[in-house]
């Protein structure tokens, strides 16, 4: 095998491990999982895992990076054309719905994760907060929405949906809580902020 082929194979394995990592951590969580179990799930040797990720934390952070990239891109694309708050909220939930199992782990275990992981979640929030603010200011100017400071508008929304996501096993056992409760949450939030 040539050096280039070996490099490509190594990169392909790396990508595959990251993909499997997203499903693995979504299912097991971050705190209660180890690299030995990850190697089994990925059907590779423990040594192969360490070849790509020298520590468990390196694996977690690489998977979080990949997840963050995807979510950031998906949020940007979904929200960009939305001109009304209702549309932005639905677009936000639509993206989170697609990644709900992994996102729920981030919400549930976020405060226990390294600062890098927490900063990732908060920077994703910043993009949603920005979009909400752009459309909310417009609607407030037309009188249809209350004037609420940007961070309070966003934090109220995220607190509402994170409560349901963090407790998804209770609100929607075996199901997507955003499928089950998403419409209700959007309606509730809009009633709170509309004039």
């Amino acid at each position: 095998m040539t050096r280039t082929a070996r490099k490509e194979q190594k990169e392909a394995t790396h990508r595959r491990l990251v993909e499997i990592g997203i499903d693995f951590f979504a299912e097991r969580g971050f705190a209660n999982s180890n690299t030995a179990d990850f190697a089994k799930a990925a059907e590779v040797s423990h040594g192969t895992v360490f070849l790509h990720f020298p520590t468990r934390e390196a694996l977690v952070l690489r998977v979080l990076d990949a997840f963050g990239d995807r979510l950031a891109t998906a949020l940007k694309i979904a929200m960009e054309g939305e001109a009304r708050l209702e549309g932005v909220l639905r677009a936000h939930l639509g993206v989170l719905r697609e990644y709900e199992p992994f996102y729920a782990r981030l919400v549930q275990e976020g405060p226990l994760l390294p600062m890098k992981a927490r900063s990732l979640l908060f920077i994703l929030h910043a993009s949603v907060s920005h979009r909400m603010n752009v459309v909310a200011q417009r609607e407030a100017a037309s009188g249809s929405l209350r004037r609420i400071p940007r961070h309070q508008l966003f934090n109220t929304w995220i607190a509402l949906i994170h409560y349901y996501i963090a407790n998804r096993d209770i609100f929607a056992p075996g199901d997507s809580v955003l499928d089950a409760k998403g419409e209700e949450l959007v309606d509730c939030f809009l009633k709170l902020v509309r004039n």
Partner: protein
Amino acid sequence: MSIKCVSCGSCGFPMENPEDFALGDPSQPHCRYCTDSTGALLPYEAVLATNARHYVESQGVSPEAARNMAAALLASMPAWRNRPGVAAQ
């Protein structure tokens, strides 16, 4: 999700449209927020301050925590990961 766009090598901002890139040029590695009018990357402190401000303005995070979170995020970015004194947390 199969859609993939590149992200800024300095702050991670997803760059999809030409105007997202420095100088409006999709061949640039950094976004318009991390660069000056010539397309050059801004100093680390300036990028750090801009990112920290995002956390404060968007979510009311305390300024000190916002700076710590921004530093943690930048530490793994290609533009800053080899900068002396910057270590991924």
